[in-house]
């Protein structure tokens, strides 16, 4: 026993030593920005030495935990063949119809009852979370399935929002008639952008879409005659409910159900699309463009449909956004918004519908409920994005491709399944 404990102690000592070094390094790193606070007007300096002490004390345990987690991650990837318990649980749920049906029913009941259980404020938050679920699912078509990195997705969102706002403002068009028009306009913009950029690859595509998003925002900001500039458009009417007057909280509940229905519709469409002919073409294009063309898939058409469909969904959500806030201005459509939507897709797990839903809920609800930390919330938000990626690079939920299993004799099949369950 003694002989075993010596390397362990040596290991522990070296780990502690390294963590001490790390915490010294961070004290050095944060020294000027954390400790010295300049007041350039009065030409004085505040020295805040206590902050340095706190950083040293905080980094040391964090470094230990970090190193331990890294070690576990490396060991985990070494025995890749073994399934983790989450994966097995996921397979169990998928395999067993009864469990999955029960979970779905429970979830559906909860979601429908949500606005009646919780306050109007909570419902508002949930509406925006659901809107981001739709945005995430829309972008998932472009990024997750077709593998085209789009950093200007917010442009189509803006197109949808502004079409409803302007149509409502000038022509008094209602929500229901503006919804398809907004989505249609966004689709047209998607195709318009899609054409010139289809030749571009990977990150060139990323910067052009980013530029396109910025151009749309800047035009909206500066073309006062068209979009009323930075002051935005106010007084957009809420969706009508068969001409019946609704109170503010009733409107919230009504909007919640509209969004919920649209989310359900989106999930249906996306999941059907994924296993359709075009969906498989997208995935094939993502995996290998050349092989894909060799198999006779029309590259241009496939990419364009992905772009256009993604844009359509952004247009839908744009209309809802305008109807929800009743006021829009270009400040809502910055690059940061695109980055958040992209993060939803990647963080949740690219290509996976449940992943995108979880990602949207995490990324939108996290800052909302972090309001308790008020000023620290964006700091925590940024840090959690890094941490989730570092420890789960494939996203929170990994996308599962449809498997086709060759059916052998009944007996062996059962044997195989039992093995999988007990492994």
């Amino acid at each position, binding site marked *: 026993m003694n002989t075993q404990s010596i390397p362990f102690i040596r290991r522990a000592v070296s780990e502690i030593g390294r963590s001490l070094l790390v915490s010294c*390094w*961070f004290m050095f*790193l*944060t020294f*000027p*920005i*954390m400790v*010295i*606070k*300049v007041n*350039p*007007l009065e*030409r004085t*300096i505040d020295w805040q030495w206590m*902050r340095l002490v706190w950083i040293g004390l905080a980094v040391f345990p964090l470094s230990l935990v970090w190193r331990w987690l*890294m070690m576990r*991650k490396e060991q985990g990837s070494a025995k890749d063949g073994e399934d983790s318990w989450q994966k097995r649980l996921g397979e169990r749920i998928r395999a067993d119809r009864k469990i999955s049906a029960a979970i779905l029913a429970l979830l559906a009941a909860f979601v429908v009852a949500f606005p009646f259980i919780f306050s109007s404020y909570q419902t508002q938050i949930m509406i925006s979370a659901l809107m981001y679920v739709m945005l995430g699912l829309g972008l998932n078509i472009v*990024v997750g399935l077709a593998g085209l*990195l789009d950093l200007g997705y917010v442009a189509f969102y803006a197109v949808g929002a502004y079409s409803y706002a302007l149509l409502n403002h000038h022509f008094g068009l209602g929500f229901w008639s503006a919804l398809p028009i907004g989505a249609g306009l966004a689709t047209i913009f998607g195709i318009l952008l899609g054409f*010139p*950029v289809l*030749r*571009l*690859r990977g*990150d*060139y595509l*990323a*910067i*052009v879409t*980013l*530029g*396109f998003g*910025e*151009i749309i925002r*800047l*035009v909206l*900001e*500066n073309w006062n005659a068209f979009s009323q500039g930075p002051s935005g458009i106010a007084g957009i009417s809420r969706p009508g409910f068969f001409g019946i007057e609704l109170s503010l909280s009733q409107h919230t509940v009504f909007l919640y159900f509209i969004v919920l229905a649209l989310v359900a519709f989106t999930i249906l469409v996306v999941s059907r699309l994924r296993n359709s002919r075009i969906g498989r073409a997208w995935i094939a294009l993502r995996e290998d*463009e*050349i092989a894909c063309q060799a198999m006779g898939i029309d590259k241009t058409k496939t990419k364009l449909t992905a772009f256009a469909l993604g844009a359509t969904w952004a247009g839908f959500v744009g209309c809802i956004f305008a109807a929800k806030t009743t006021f829009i201005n270009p400040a809502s459509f910055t*690059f940061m918004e695109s980055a958040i939507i*992209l*993060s939803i897709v*990647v*963080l949740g797990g*690219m290509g996976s519908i449940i992943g995108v839903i979880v990602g949207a809920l995490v990324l939108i609800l996290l800052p909302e409920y972090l309001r308790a930390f008020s*000023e*620290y919330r*964006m*700091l925590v*938000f*940024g*840090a*959690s*994005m*890094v941490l989730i*990626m*570092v420890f789960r*690079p*494939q996203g929170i939920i990994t996308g599962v491709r449809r498997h086709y299993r060759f059916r052998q004799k009944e007996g062996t099949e059962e044997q195989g399944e039992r093995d999988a369950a007990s492994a």
Partner: protein
Amino acid sequence: MDYFLELFFGGLTRGSIYALIALGYTMVYGIIQLINFAHGEIYMIGAFTALIAASALSLLGLNGPALLVLAGLIAVIYSAAYGYTIEKIAYKPLRTAQRLSPLISAIGMSIFLQNYVLLAQTSDFLSFPTLVDEFAFMEPVSHIMRSSELLIVLTTLVCTVLLTLFIKFSRMGKAMRATAQDKTMAMLLGININQVISVTFIIGSSLAAVGGVLISNHIGQINFYIGFIAGIKAFTAAVLGGIGSIPGAVLGGLILGWTESFATGYVSSDYEDVFAFGLLVFILIFRPAGILGRTSTDKV
């Protein structure tokens, strides 16, 4: 004519700053194919560190060129340290992950760093002390070009030449080129990939810090948000010139700087960025790999 020259030199200055930041983007991209969104934040941290160091040092009685050099040096050291640390924390664990994961990690890092500076310092604009006086010999042309602009252009020139020489002739530069070409092969030939990547981040961050100090000295005020916009512009410049190519980054930066300067001067300052991005889209339609980028064909 004077107005034209003023815009010309204004564009040159802007372009030089974009070029300095774009160099870091392009080097990192060339080696690990990552759009380092946190790069603009490094530039911002460089500017802040210089401001803090200059204020602290001026209390000690330092002033003039010595103050600029010393504050600049401290800023470069700290930015390099930040660049190195960020790579170790946010990108190194993701080296084998799918392509988009480090990108999201970079966006997260960028949000984190912005808010870190916002919380530790302030959200207001801080006025940056004037570190260099107007040179006497610039007096006759001061209506066209200011001394700080001359300083920016000259420093960029020196940095670019030094960097080109370093990459072309030093041992490390050779290793960097090899890594950019084929990482696995470079590893097989005994190149320490981790070291090469660290050095790339350190050099890129130092250049960004130089840009940050110079432009803050020129404009005279900074806040925590300057890195974001500069980062996006510099990335545009890098792509415009052909990402991965060092002369391309400089050329892209200059073209972008001039476009913005002339668009502001002759058309309207509101649409400055629209022109910048419009030019980018236009050029990429005709040269999908940027101006100096090489189009590589995949072999099957």
